[in-house]
């Protein structure tokens, strides 16, 4: 019975009630109405925001009730049909001074907690961890400054769910391949920028929202108090994929973070060392297949045949069987005006070498070319 009543309220009654009334009901913390007000979040800043929001809310309720009460009274009692005779008064200095002073006082009363919170919001000093957040159309890159660790974080919701060919999953449009990982109870500073258009990095639970602007670096910070998985999104219109670049932050215990970052650091180091190593054809082919299936197959298809008219075939393609230079160029730098992205900064040298080698030898392409990570490095440096 009760769930049904709640359903009824959420779907039908809540939207129909007048604003002050419905939100005042929503404002009650906890209870069965929990979850339909702004979240208090999991940081000090987000709680300050929430508290200020509630102060403003009650001020608005009081002003609204008083103003509308006077209006309704007039409309009901002073109507022509009631035969009311109009009064004739047109000015009152006292009343008008009151009109001016009262709102001014209300605003000052609001400004005090607002300023305290404002100062806190901008205080990015003494951060223990610095994470550089870079926006791309349409994904995020996270770089742990000083750790040598950096990765891309992209939406994993398949098109089939977006276009209603499959049922939507639990985290529809809120799931990524590599979430950002940060430790709990630690001040993390986010340095936010963009490589192309303006994005905005928003984590509502942290009380954090900051634009990512090309050519600028903006700063913000968070000290999250509860471990968990938090989800946010891009909030500045950044082209047609704007709705498809969510943020997932995994907040973990400090120990867990330390071992995670150590692992990542070691992996990154190994990756850099690998770049100078010579690989055999077989090694490159098996690694290349993995990379291909992860990064290329969604367009060019696992069988290398692409989609005629949309995505070119790799099998017997002009580029995959042409000169190695041209092939590296398009993989590293992408192709303007098409969906082909630049993978130069997204994949490691080893991965780039492997995937190029794979594409040149799989599906009967059999060019026999072996591209080593060193070749990729040389190509990049030679540009």
């Amino acid at each position, binding site marked *: 019975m009760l769930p049904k009543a709640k359903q009824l309220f959420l779907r039908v009654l809540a939207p129909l009630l007048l604003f002050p009334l419905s939100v005042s009901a929503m404002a009650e913390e906890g209870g069965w109405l929990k979850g339909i007000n702004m979240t208090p979040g999991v940081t000090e800043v987000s709680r300050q925001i929430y508290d200020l929001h509630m102060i403003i809310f009650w001020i608005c309720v009081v002003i609204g009730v008083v103003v509308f009460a*006077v209006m309704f009274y007039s409309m009901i009692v002073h109507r*022509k049909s009631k035969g009311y005779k109009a009064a*004739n008064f047109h000015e009152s200095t006292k009343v008008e001074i009151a009109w001016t002073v009262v709102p001014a006082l209300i605003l000052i009363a609001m400004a005090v907690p*607002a300023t305290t919170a404002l100062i806190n919001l901008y205080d990015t000093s003494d951060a223990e961890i610095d994470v550089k957040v870079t926006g791309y159309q349409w994904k995020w890159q996270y770089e742990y400054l000083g750790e040598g660790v950096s990765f891309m974080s992209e939406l994993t919701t398949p098109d089939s769910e977006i276009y209603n060919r499959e049922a939507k999953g639990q985290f529809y449009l809120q799931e990524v391949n590599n979430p950002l990982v940060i430790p709990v109870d630690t001040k993390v500073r986010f340095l936010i920028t963009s490589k192309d258009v303006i994005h*905005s990095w928003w984590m509502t639970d942290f009380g954090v929202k900051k634009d990512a602007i090309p050519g600028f670096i903006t700063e913000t910070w968070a000290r999250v108090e509860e471990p968990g998985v938090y989800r946010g999104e891009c909030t500045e*219109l950044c082209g047609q994929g704007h709705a498809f670049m969510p943020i997932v932050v995994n907040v973990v215990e400090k120990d867990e973070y330390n071992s995670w970052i150590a692992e990542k650091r070691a992996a990154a180091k190994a990756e850099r060392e690998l770049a100078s190593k010579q690989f055999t054809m077989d090694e490159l082919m098996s690694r290349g297949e993995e990379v291909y299936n992860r990064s290329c197959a969604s367009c060019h298809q696992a069988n290398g045949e692409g989609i005629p008219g949309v995505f070119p075939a790799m099998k017997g393609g002009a580029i995959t069987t042409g000169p190695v230079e041209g092939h590296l160029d398009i993989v590293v730098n992408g192709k303007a005006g098409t969906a082909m992205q630049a993978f130069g900064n997204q994949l490691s040298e080893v991965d780039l070498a492997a995937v190029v080698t794979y594409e040149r030898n799989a599906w009967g392409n059999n060019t026999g070319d072996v591209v080593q990570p060193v070749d990729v490095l040389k190509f990049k440096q030679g540009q």
Partner: protein
Amino acid sequence: MGHVAIADQAEEELHEPGSFITRYIWSQDHKVIAIQYGITAIVVGLVALVLSGMMRLQLAFPNAFSFIDPESYYQFVTMHGMIMIVYLLTALLLGGFGNYLIPLMIGARDMVFPFLNMLSYWVYLLSVIVLLASFFVPAGPTGAGWTLYPPQSILEGTPGVEWGIMLMLVSLAIFIVAFTMGGLNYVTTILQARTRGMTLMRMPLSVWGIFIATILGLFAFPALFVSAIMMMLDHLVGTSFFMPALISQGETVSHDGGSPIMFQHLFWFFGHPEVYIVALPAFGIVSDLISTHARKNIFGYRMMVWAILAIGVLSFVVWAHHMYVSGMHPYFGFFFATTTLIIAVPTAIKVYNWVLTLWRGNIRLTVPMLFAIGFIFSFVNGGLTGLYLGNVVVDVPLSDTYFVVGHFHMVMGVSPILVIFGAIYHWFPKITGRMLDERLGKIHFWLTFLGTYAVYLPMHYLGFLGVPRRYYAYGTTEFIPDSAQALNVNITVAALIVAVVQIVFIVNVIWSLVRGERASGNPWDATTLEWQTPETPPRHGNWGDELPTVYRWAYDYSVPGREEDFVPQNEPLSSDELKESENRERGEGQ
């Protein structure tokens, strides 16, 4: 006494039209130009209304309609916003009501530059045509959002980057040319062509609102004009005003060293005063509607005038509150938050004065009055939610969410539209000589008013939940719970109903034009000059042989001791009043 010379001009200098074409098409009569402006704005506004319906369909039923893909969705978003704000509201309130009301309310025969006035309309029409043309060019109109933020507005990945954005910028530039021609004309007319006795402090508040809004426009639109030109140069010639070095679609662009933030500053330096360019005429008109239909003088006329002026000045120092999350220095954030909250004070004064005007009036709930009261409701609600957004910290979770969408639609969408409807119901008898149908008007009001609440109130709740705006796809997610998606459906249904209800209005206008009850010259018993013209509708030149002389302010309603409950502005003072005013002057002199 500059105004007397022009007011005494002979009739033939006023370009009395001869043929049908000079009377109705290439007309230099301010009343005809006003109607041309009005009809064009309403037609283009209907286009924007249809676009919003399409957006709502996608939001309620994600991807159920194959013709709405991400590209077209963002194109609808952009065109809806830009058309509504610039081509409908600005054009209708200033080009339409400004043109119609200014000369009639101040007792002039026409605008002081009638030819320029005509040119202003035709240039405006050109800008509309250029804008609408972008629907028919390859890749369609721009999908950059009405704010047109670079870099994305001129980079691959945004719809309409080939043609759409150029047509948008060109159209805006043309619009600003039209606005400047019209605006200079309105300001000059108000300053120079007022009839005898019409001092500035006797002008109806409608004229004050339009006057200050026009001045705001003359200062604010140039910022948009230069940013449009600079963006065109960035796009066409490869300059770097707004474009830093960046990588687009895997290629390094040829730009270097520009600042996207500079565009935001320029844009909002225009964009914020634009809110008041729309709001101030609405404030003015609503003051007159309330006073007339409550049969009571406006409370605190002087205060109302000063509030309009104060809002006008302050509106130029609040622009960066649109950029709290763009990463500004906290001191600037504090400065703009402070100015934003200060501007609430004169605005609050206006609201209190309207309420006190209603208080102990003799309220007639006519259709114009209903719309005027509806305006106060929506405006107060929209203004209160501004308190959240004006605070930097509370703005952080709310900016770019549906809370913002709800807020600005309430405050500068619904509110001015309600005033526009009220004004049309109010002045229609003067414009056409026939009354609009009262019953259809009431149906139109209630469905529109309640409908807009059903549309916009739930949006505030969506914003609290953190539903971002300008998202193509929602659907049920962990983050956007069932209740939010259900609301999206409710909103869409309500929005479609409101859109369809506007047919009632159109039917009412057309039916009343032909069959409506004939109106007397002053059906509302109003005091202002436009109701005192010798003919209804007023003929070319407005006043016949002799211009009216003004003896009193515009709000002499229910004056004690009078038989009628209104005294027109052009009625000479009675002997009692004369004595009283002499006493007052003597009192002030000492």
